[in-house]
């Protein structure tokens, strides 16, 4: 039996000025942030005309050699091999933007940072000796310089498009630096913490999601990580005073941005440890 497939036809590269080369890289992650790029259904074909998709295994088997004008990096560094790979990627990238909580703060897999990795591995795998992993899950910034970081678990796709557009036009991406509270105000959502006593990380979490959870009658659970001047201790003390046990407060800070310094320190404080903070 043979198939009727044809050889790949030529790509549309001729007859136009050189388009910037875009590469998308994956480290330890769930794929959700790079999926957010493919989720830009209305813009995807235009983006693919504005840039040359040079490396993006989730979307294409074609590979164009570097150097790349822009690399988007998803995921955190968790293996010795990946620690080397990110160095190579940095060397072949003019600009590098991290996308999402894993690449920016170590992700949920950074929960290993406060646990014994060998013991964790033995819970899942019969033969932990087949694995080659690092003790800690670390953000990309801990290994190489990055031009910009996009927060979120997952990233906001509007912000992703803005960051790509900004880099291609040699300007800084417009990334919100206020807290989720400011987005609730703008959206006109009644404060669920004040009105209903719902525990909410909004006051200490960076904006970017559009204050989604409070609009669904749910407290913010910190997908975008700590914002610049987050007073996590004051919020934690408030939650404790409202009757939330310390272990619950600890877990609230120990999720997708567990290794972001402000959240990591607060979780440690709730465990009764002195703050030991990731790079």
């Amino acid at each position, binding site marked *: 039996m043979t198939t009727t497939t044809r050889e790949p036809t030529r790509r549309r590269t001729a007859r136009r000025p050189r388009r910037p080369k875009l590469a998308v890289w994956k480290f330890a992650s769930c794929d959700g*942030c790079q999926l957010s790029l493919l989720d830009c259904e209305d813009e995807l074909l235009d983006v693919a005309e504005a840039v040359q*998709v040079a490396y993006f295994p989730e979307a294409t088997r074609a590979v164009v050699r570097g150097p790349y004008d822009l690399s988007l990096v998803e995921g955190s560094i968790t293996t010795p091999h*990946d620690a080397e790979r990110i160095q190579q990627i940095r060397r072949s990238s003019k600009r590098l933007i991290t996308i999402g909580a894993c690449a920016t703060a170590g992700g949920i897999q950074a929960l290993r940072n406060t646990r014994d990795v060998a013991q964790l591995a033995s819970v*899942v795998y019969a033969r932990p000796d087949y694995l080659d*992993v690092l003790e800690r899950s670390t953000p990309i910034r801990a290994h190489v310089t990055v031009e910009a970081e996009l927060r979120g678990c997952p990233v906001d796709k509007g912000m992703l498009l803005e960051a790509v557009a900004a880099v291609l036009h040699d300007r800084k991406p417009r990334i919100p630096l206020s807290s989720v509270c400011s987005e609730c105000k703008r959206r006109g959502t009644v404060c669920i913490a004040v009105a209903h006593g719902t525990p909410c990380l909004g006051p200490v979490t960076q904006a970017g999601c559009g204050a989604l959870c409070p609009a669904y009658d749910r407290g913010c659970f910190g997908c975008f990580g700590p914002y610049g001047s987050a007073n996590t201790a004051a919020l934690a003390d408030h939650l404790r005073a409202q009757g939330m046990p310390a272990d619950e407060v600890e877990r609230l800070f120990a999720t*997708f941005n567990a290794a972001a310094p402000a959240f990591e320190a607060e979780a440690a404080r709730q465990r009764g440890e002195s703050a030991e903070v990731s790079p």
Partner: protein
Amino acid sequence: MTRARSLDVPVLARVEGEGAMHVRIRDGKVDDVRLQIYEPPRFFEGFLRGRDAAEAPDITARICGICPVAYQAAACNAVEAARGETVTDAIRAMRRLLYCGEWIESHALHIYLLHAPDFLGYPDALSMAADHRELVQQGLRLKKTGNELMELAGGRAVHPVNIKVGGFYRFPTPSEMARARASLDQAAADAEATLRAVAALALPDVRMDYHFVALDPENGDYPLEDGRFVLSGDGVGDPDRFALDLFDERVVELHVEHSNALHARLHGVGSYVVGPLARWALVGDRMTGRAAALAAELDVERPVRNPFASIVVRALEVVFAVEEAQRLLDTWPGDPGPSGVDVPRGPGVGYGASEAPRGLLVHRYRLDDDGLIRDARIIPPTSQNQAQIEADLRAFVEDHLDLDDAELTRQCEVAIRNYDPCISCATHFLRLHVDRG
């Protein structure tokens, strides 16, 4: 003297996550086939220990950004089962609607962006769009409708925020539902056009003997967001039916050296298939309406034993999911009752399952007196399919040794994509490497 070839794909493209393929051929015989999963392990079952059962849906969603709803639904089902609670019909309907969104989004992604370029001869959908712009736009439109349904019921397309143990934080408002309903008529037309287009593709003609496994919801629905029983069979004879709670006794997971995914084997059977082919084979007669009519008109055989025809069944399931979403919205009760039921903290052991776009997903949790997770087990679809993917590759390569390495390798990649493998899920899971030497 030995004549040897080897085929290698160090980075498998157009799959979710990181894997590789390695095939070694000696003297015209396939000597070794490995679907290697090098996606780094993240230890979810490890750090679920000590977490509150109520956190399981949000934490396990992060196993996979492509099918977070599958994880959220299975986690909710498991925790609710552990605590002996059941949800209302309206909550079940809203979960099914959310899940229809994920099926439409994920299947459209796979059909148009990952799989169709293989059959039409392109490296990707973006270059395919240069010659088939309308077709790709149709796919993107469908995909977007799936995302809109997830945003409606879940608040967000990737890692929805609105689902919780016991139900939802809130139900969507009537006006939000009316807006989403409006785009479903176009989606129904797009889904039908998609099915007609993929049914007309020239696909490799392969026939395999498969053993299928799929969920069996008691209410007789096509399986999606829940089910307490599992069907297991070849799609011809009467299937074996067993309680989900016996899954651990029926399925053994093995840790093999070349993979960070655990390989699942069905007791007394060995490798088996989950996903669209399995659902269609075992419970395809439960499809109704337009999906059933189109399957008959287009002569979609049942069971489908050609793995390359999985794209046809996937497209059929999109037709079904769009129609099901229309039905769920059209029959949504005027007074749906509370959006959540109370699930008090406490001890128990519970199994929960759902049918992810790529197949059956099973969770099991053991909870302590404080409602904290003592022990978690997650069996994702791709680790269940992995042994069968390797068996398919072996059979395919042995029948196609006349092809040169480049073409054989390319077709092996297609054979892997037949399963819509989700490697992020299975790692807990893939590198193609063909060695003829």
